[in-house]
């Protein structure tokens, strides 16, 4: 069901912004770019539901809204549960001839907190129930809306306000939860990872997720200058470096079959092109303590873990 719509920059630029200007996100917010691109990939009538979080707060500051599509927020832990309700209602109402649209796409949006931690229960339930919706995780790797507290998506060694870099502890100790692999383990039709720098790859994957009959999960990397203590101008560049260092490889899994996406396939075929993780980490204040004598050894550990996970992924993609 490869869609014939080829995504040139002009096609995308010409489409109207369904996530409108005037939202209150900080300057240089990559999640805002991600939402704009996702809303440009829609293919028809769409309903969006969002979990409590930055993108919800900045876009629905009563009485204003940045959403040009029907949109609802109810609570923090239930974006997928919201989508389930909407999906079920649409199906039954259509059956009774009370919904005229042939098909309405349902998108659930949540941050890393709302997906890895408090929202995973509702997400797992909705996927298990096979609802027809696309769940998009915009992952800025901490609870940014409440002030940069650590989440299950926060990477090892990152300082947040509840996993601060102290004199004894070097920021977060636990590794980032492999949420996308967990969703593949749900044996769901479509799972993919994406990054806003590779905008055509991102939009293609959103489209595939929408075209799938049943649940789809898209994990989008979304740097946050405020929480990562990075230069607002570098948010998109960071989303590129994350792929180039293989810290955040791009792949998709159709019915459980892993396949590397073009931007990451480059580093499978030519490993020498892979950049050291240091290049990515040094641009972010949340990792500054790793560049001090006391915690320096953690840098090599992060490189080791990254290489290990990259090899495991290659095996799953049959390229090891």
């Amino acid at each position: 069901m490869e869609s014939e719509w080829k995504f040139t920059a002009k096609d995308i630029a010409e489409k109207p912004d369904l996530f409108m200007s005037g939202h209150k996100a900080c300057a240089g917010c990559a999640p805002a770019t991600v939402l704009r691109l996702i809303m440009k990939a829609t293919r028809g009538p769409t309903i969006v539901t969002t979990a409590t979080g930055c993108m919800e707060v900045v876009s629905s500051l009563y009485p204003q809204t940045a959403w040009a599509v029907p949109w609802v927020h109810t609570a923090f832990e239930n974006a997928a549960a919201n989508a389930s309700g909407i999906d079920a209602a649409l199906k039954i109402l259509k059956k009774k001839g009370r919904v005229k649209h042939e098909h309405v796409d349902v998108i659930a949006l949540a941050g890393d907190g709302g997906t890895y931690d408090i929202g995973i229960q509702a997400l797992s339930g909705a996927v298990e129930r096979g609802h027809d919706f696309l769940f998009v995780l915009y992952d800025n790797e901490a609870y940014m809306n409440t002030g940069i507290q650590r989440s299950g998506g926060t990477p090892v060694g990152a300082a947040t306000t509840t996993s601060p870099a102290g004199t004894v502890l070097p920021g977060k100790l636990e590794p980032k939860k492999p949420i996308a692999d967990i969703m593949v383990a749900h044996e769901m039709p479509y799972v993919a990872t994406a990054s806003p720098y590779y905008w055509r790859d991102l939009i293609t994957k959103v489209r595939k997720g929408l075209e799938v009959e049943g649940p789809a999960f898209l994990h989008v990397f979304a740097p946050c200058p405020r929480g990562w203590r990075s230069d607002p101008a570098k948010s998109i560049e960071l989303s590129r470096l994350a792929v180039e260092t293989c810290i955040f490889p791009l792949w998709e899994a159709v019915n459980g079959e892993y396949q590397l996406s073009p931007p990451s396939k480059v580093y499978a075929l030519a490993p020498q092109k892979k950049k050291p993780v240091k290049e990515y980490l040094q641009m972010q204040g949340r990792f500054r303590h790793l560049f001090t004598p006391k915690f320096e050894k953690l840098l090599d550990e992060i490189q080791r873990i990254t290489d290990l996970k990259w090899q495991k992924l290659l095996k799953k993609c049959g390229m090891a």
Partner: protein
Amino acid sequence: MKSIVEQNTLALSGNEAVAYAAKQSDVDVVAAYPITPQTIIVERFSEYVANGEVETAFICTESEHSAMTACLTAALTGARTFTASASAGLALMHEMLFVTSGCRAPVVMAIANRALSAPLNIHGDQSDSMAQRDSGWIQLYVENAQEVYDTIIQAFRVAENHEVLLPAMVCLDGFILSHSLENVNVLPDDVVRKFVGIRQFPNVLTHEGKMAPLKLDPENPMTMGPVAFPNYYFEVKRQQEEAMKNALKIIPQVHDEYAKISGRSYGDGLLEPYSLEDAEVAIVCLGSTAGTVKTVVDELRDEGAKAGLLRIRTFRPLPVNGIRKALEDVKVVAVMDKCMSFGGYGGPVFHEIRHILYEAGKHPTVVNYVYGLGGRDTSPQQIRKIYKDMQKILREKRVKNPVQYLGLRE
């Protein structure tokens, strides 16, 4: 009342005062989840952990539902547990609040009061803790950062007392207190450590026919949190209500013991009357607004008006006799509720005050002002208006409209 120990003055926000008190109280387990406006409590505490200043297991759970669950089970395993939440987070804990009081687990929780959704609002009102007033938790409401520091420390002693053994909520107004920096005199670590002591456990008869300390311990196996059929559920609940009654005795005792050490007291620990002796008109309220009321009462007294205030510090258990006695000679009382009881007649504190005065021989005319919802600020002028309304009722001997909304665009 003079303090008998050396204390230094810190500039702390309400949240920081809570975290500081918890740090000194030798807490074993903190399981918490971030939610504005309490996040600074868990942030500051995580810094104590990261810098090795406390010996506490700090669990960043993935939801408040799990935060309360983790605190409950840790307490049943014998740990002193502490957590903090607010608004939607406290609401998400609702199910677990009843389980925690039902299991008689003495969890201490700070609540940075915040309005409940919808619409979403991050500012302070008391709809969140008022909604949990029947959950079996002790509820203490504080007026400022100094009092929240003192009350967190006292809460551990009250909750863990064997005649009580109930969880306790210490409520501070979101942002107005939680995020506002004030002078706080803190006790030395060793004095607090001695005051809260180490948790002791009452003995209970276990299924092995022996008396053993009430905690999950392989030494003395016991079953906790069972299902209770109709033949016994009612009895368990009545036993739990008895613990609440005991708390009416224990809270003042702990309060007075602490006052001797710190030199600070808040009425008798249950209620704080202010210029109430000969007052004709008086306001009854909880939390930080009481400070603004005291300021206005002083001005009205200078202008010759007999005005007073009764601040409720302990809302659960409700000090019924104390309230009756305090309001006996007052002519008109205005109860201030920072919470709406939808479909009811006035707010929850109004309900309580009116019905406990019902059979009291002499009792004042009681009216109600719902105010400050969603963090709307309450100014001295608005407090003055309430006293002016009461004086009008006193003169005209009639009440046109007992339930009013203060500061609302009608």
